[in-house]
């Protein structure tokens, strides 16, 4: 019981990495980004590429960290390029048209990944030092779960600090509240958008790179993960980072318990939970949050 709750929390933090990026981008650009799953998948492939090109046989933890960072930053760079080239034009469409536009981009990214890496599943081994399990308060937990939880907490604190305690965060929140007003007072809102998009996609890349030891890596990881991330941001309340954190942890734990006790519901539990929450609270857990609360 405790063990699967622990594993669920780790999964939840991994989901949070994707969902928080989605939330950031939704908050500032008012766009729900299907292609986020594509950036997640690219992050995983970038890390895979770095790891296999070096060919270490137990994979050293230090090198894995390098691979994860390269994956994350590389995806951020791709994110900046797509924002400049494509998203600029998509922002002006209606919300549904822009959603479909990002769906087009998702297909595009998935197709490119299929051309480059093929559709055979790839895998990355657990890096040394975190490939075992340890006893914590009497339950066996995988050390990699502890890594995921640690990274998730760091990202959560980092986002809070960035948005609440820095000048950049203040600008991002201002644009999220009222982009038009920000433009009137002379703020470079386009630059803020690009920066927020870069951070969001880096988080997706980070999540993807960290997920490599856990998933069989194929291009359709992109379409599989984005649905769960969407469920998280909708249930959390669109635009709320704390809401998406709560929802991600709840989803992670519930699904992990489902895997242990009702295997037939693993994966489906997401959608049942979403169904129930939206019946009770159509607006999500955290309603009408001030920007990113």
């Amino acid at each position, binding site marked *: 019981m405790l063990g699967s709750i622990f594993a669920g929390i780790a999964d939840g933090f991994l989901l949070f990495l994707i969902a928080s990026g989605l939330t950031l981008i939704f908050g500032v650009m008012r766009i729900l980004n299907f292609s986020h799953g594509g950036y997640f998948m690219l992050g995983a492939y970038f890390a895979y590429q770095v790891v296999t090109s070096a060919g270490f046989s137990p994979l050293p933890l230090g090198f894995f960290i390098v691979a994860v960072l390269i994956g994350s930053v590389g995806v951020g760079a791709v994110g900046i390029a797509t924002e400049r080239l494509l998203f600029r034009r998509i922002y002006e*469409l*209606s919300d*549904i048209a822009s959603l*479909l536009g990002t769906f087009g981009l998702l297909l*595009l990214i998935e*197709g490119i990944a299929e051309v480059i890496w093929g559709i055979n599943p790839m895998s990355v081994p657990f890096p040394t030092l975190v490939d075992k399990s340890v006893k914590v308060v009497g339950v066996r937990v995988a050390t990699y779960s502890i890594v995921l939880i640690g990274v998730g907490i760091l990202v959560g604190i980092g986002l809070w600090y960035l948005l609440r305690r820095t000048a950049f965060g203040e600008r991002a929140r201002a644009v999220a509240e009222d982009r038009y007003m920000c433009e009137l007072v002379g703020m470079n809102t386009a630059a803020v958008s690009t920066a927020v998009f870069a951070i969001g996609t880096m988080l997706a890349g980070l999540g993807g790179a960290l997920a490599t030891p856990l998933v069989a890596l194929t291009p359709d990881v992109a379409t599989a993960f984005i649905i769960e991330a969407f469920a998280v941001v909708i249930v959390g309340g*669109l635009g709320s980072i704390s809401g998406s954190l709560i929802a991600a942890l709840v989803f992670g734990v519930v699904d992990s318990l489902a895997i242990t006790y009702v295997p037939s519901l693993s994966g489906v539990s997401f959608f049942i939970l979403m*169904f129930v929450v939206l*019946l009770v609270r*159509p607006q999500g857990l955290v309603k009408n949050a001030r920007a990113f609360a």
Partner: protein
Amino acid sequence: MLARLRSRRDSASLAGLLGPIALIVVAVLVVPSLASGATMFLYELVLIQILMATSTNFLFGRSHMPSLGQAAFFGTGAYTVALVYDVVPIPAALLLAIAVSAVVAFVIAAVSVRTDGLVFANVTLALGQGMYLLAVKTNWVGSENGIPGISAGSLGANGVWYLVGGCVIAALVVCWVIYHSPFGLTLYAIREDPIRLEFLGVNVAIYRMVSFTIAGAGAGLAGGLFAYASGIVTPNTMYWTQSGYPILMILVGGMGFFWGPAIGAIGVTLLLNELSGNPGWNLIILGLVLIGVLLFAPRGLLGLWVDARAWLRRGSARRPLPAHSP
């Protein structure tokens, strides 16, 4: 605006129904003497996708209910036929497919119409994907492998073709009548201004639920026909990206026109078939088509055609009409 109204009036005249239907009838009669085997299956897919896209357009062009879960109803219809094909005759199986998907759509509508816009899109997406996962995990529908060996009994290859053709034509006529009926026009009014219609005493939620149910029933019939045409049903028919294809077809053809989705369905299905030998590239080209249509031709091919005609009539002095954003 004017051109939009005019184009609607044009398509609402009986000629707007009979012309395209006559074309499809001729095509259905001619194809068996020209094609066979795999080509025949491709044309069956085209017909099925025409029905799928047209019924989905109840949600996009008629109501403002951007569902991303229509594949779930297509799959429901397909699985229904797969489960009953050897115990009941074909018409009963297809009616059952329509009924079961309509019921499922109604239940999903009851929850999802409480939401709007992006949240609605996500709720339908998630519920549809939930049904996909259920299909993958349920043993009595064959889990990942689905249900193979569905046969249409004594109907031969040509018989299945006429079955698909006949059903699609009948369903298109029904769709057209509903689309242009007072009910359909009320949906259109709700799409444009739901609050005003609410004040006029229209029960907006009921209209939206019925619209969703009709679209689900249409998708269910398309799925049932697909089961007979392909002989196998797998969970992949319900995967969420399959819900994206009818939307792509609607956008390519033009969602503001009754026949737009049909034109898009023909184009996209044939394109997908051309690209099927190039894994990866098929997705790349679909993605580019979708982005290109949204950015450069938001009213689709028929919209371009209407603009071009208006432009030719007026001369080049004036700009084309502003795009009708979906």
